[in-house]
């Protein structure tokens, strides 16, 4: 049963969670701050992908944890079945090509699937110096899936060629990847409008589905690279009532996943409200302890 009402980030979360399929070692990694992706991992872990191995920080075998700014790390350790150095985990997941999914989100993505997390403008004299890619260059190359999500779908984000390729999956075609001992898997882009997919190096991204209420022309107009559009474009599946309930009540009651959609001052204001609730929850525990 689909949910009567849902928000666009909940649809995106449910679509990303679908990528948690039991392939390879089924390892899903919580990397750098990507709350929308974290919500997807928890949703998968609580529904169809209960066997997935979740890892984050030094913790491995994490249970589904409630997302919060101040508590996710602590919950990860409390539920983990092992811990190891970043290096050991890196050799297992990234460099050992056992990773299934670790979403990335970047300032730009190009027609070739390259992502830019480094600089807008000239690298040596950037207009905007971005944070850098952390492990994304190895993730997009070595994980079974490459899933990039964006909270806006426009020609500034989906560009013909990125200003700088912090990471690039190469090759993309399954046969060429297997020949090199890399796990096969397409490049997927999930946005508030649509899902795009690239299976072959020499073929453009294809419009896999448009979200309910979005027309194909809007997607094409807002995409800065050539898009292959099939005759009949499917509509992205809507989240189920149960998925939305899990997200709102169990996984993300503080609504951290909406955070991705905010910018600048709006973001800091939202953060202050959200943190006030986290503070109150912790302060109540201190008061309870004092009363005992």
């Amino acid at each position: 049963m689909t949910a009567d009402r849902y928000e666009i980030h909940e649809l995106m979360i449910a679509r990303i969670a679908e990528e948690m399929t039991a392939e390879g070692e089924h390892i899903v990694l919580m990397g750098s701050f990507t709350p929308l992706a974290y919500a997807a991992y928890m949703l998968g872990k609580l529904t169809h992908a209960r066997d997935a191995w979740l890892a984050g920080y030094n913790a491995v075998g994490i249970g589904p944890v409630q997302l919060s700014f101040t508590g996710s790390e602590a919950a990860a350790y409390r539920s983990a079945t092992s811990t190891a150095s970043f290096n050991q985990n890196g050799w297992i997941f990234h460099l050992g090509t056992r990773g299934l999914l670790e979403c990335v989100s970047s300032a730009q993505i190009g027609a070739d699937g390259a992502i830019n997390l480094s600089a807008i403008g000239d690298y040596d004299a950037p207009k905007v110096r971005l944070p850098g890619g952390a492990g994304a260059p190895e993730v997009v190359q070595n994980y079974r899936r490459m899933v990039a999500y964006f909270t806006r779908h426009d020609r500034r984000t989906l560009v013909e060629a990125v200003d700088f390729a912090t990471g690039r999956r190469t090759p993309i075609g399954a046969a060429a990847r297997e020949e090199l001992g890399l796990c096969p898997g397409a490049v997927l882009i999930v946005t508030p409008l649509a899902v795009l997919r690239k299976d072959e190096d020499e073929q453009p991204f294809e419009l896999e589905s448009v979200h309910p209420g979005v027309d194909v022309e809007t997607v094409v107009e807002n995409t800065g690279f050539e898009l292959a559009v099939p005759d009949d474009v499917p509509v992205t599946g809507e989240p189920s009532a149960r998925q939305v309930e899990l997200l709102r009540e169990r996984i993300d009651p503080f609504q951290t996943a909406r955070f991705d959609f905010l910018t600048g001052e709006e973001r800091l204001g939202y953060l202050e409200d959200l943190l006030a609730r986290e503070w109150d929850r912790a302060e109540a525990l201190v008061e309870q302890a004092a009363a005992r």
Partner: protein
Amino acid sequence: MEDLPGLIPEGSTVVLGGGWFANHPMAAVRELIRAGRDDLHAIALLGSIDVDLLVGARALRHLTFSMVTLEAFGLATNFRRAVQSGELPITEISALSLQVALEAGAHRVPFLPLRGPVGSDLVAMHPDFYGTASTSLGDADVPVVKAVRPDVALLHATRCDALGNVQHEGTYAMDPELARASDRVIVTCEEIVPTEAVAADASLTRIPGLLVDAVIEAPFGAHPCSHVPRYAQDAWKLLDYQKAALAGGDAYDALLDRIRGEDEESYRERMLGDGRGRVLEALVEAAVVIDEEAA
């Protein structure tokens, strides 16, 4: 604590422990700022306020990193400004490659092979770091990264003993490899305990004392970053920091002046007084693991 900067020779390359907002050696970072350092080459795997504060205080002459970000709080303001203006020379390396390079340093071998980020522009940009090797065993053009050997590792831990044994209960990022890769290892810790207490749970010892040169007691030494399971990140003070950094000018100078004008004990009183430290500890307790059966 005030002896710490003297253990770091002028011009040193210093690798910082921790990752994201977890367990950076913040007390040590503040002490370097109090000492007025301006000569350091920092290596930051996954940097946040540790790097931004050092950049803002003009303590760095170079930065090697894979990422510097204040995540939810926004781009790392001082880092961004200093790179955009050309004031701070940088070397950007992908995280796993930097980890393996430090591991090569730890193993005292010249390079290590890995399934690296072959499609990244960073590879062509740094031919002195990302290379290939062919061997007498018949392997040709295997991607490798060159070993990195920092002069100093600055780490924060849960507890240490007088022999330099280092225990972490929560996030330790790649601190053990950093200790092995570096010539000198300086560790601040929440508490210094008798060796018997360390021996009582030796499985928590991530770094054996034989690798460690100095241990310094620094309670809340990761603040405002987290030291799980002792305390969570102080998101409120991180937000204050970002606001000061965004405002820049006098607001940020005032922030630096306060740090310079106090010692760590006064810092703790200022930041964690009025029971605030207890709330940061309670945030760890308040964290929720979802009951899969009930969900």
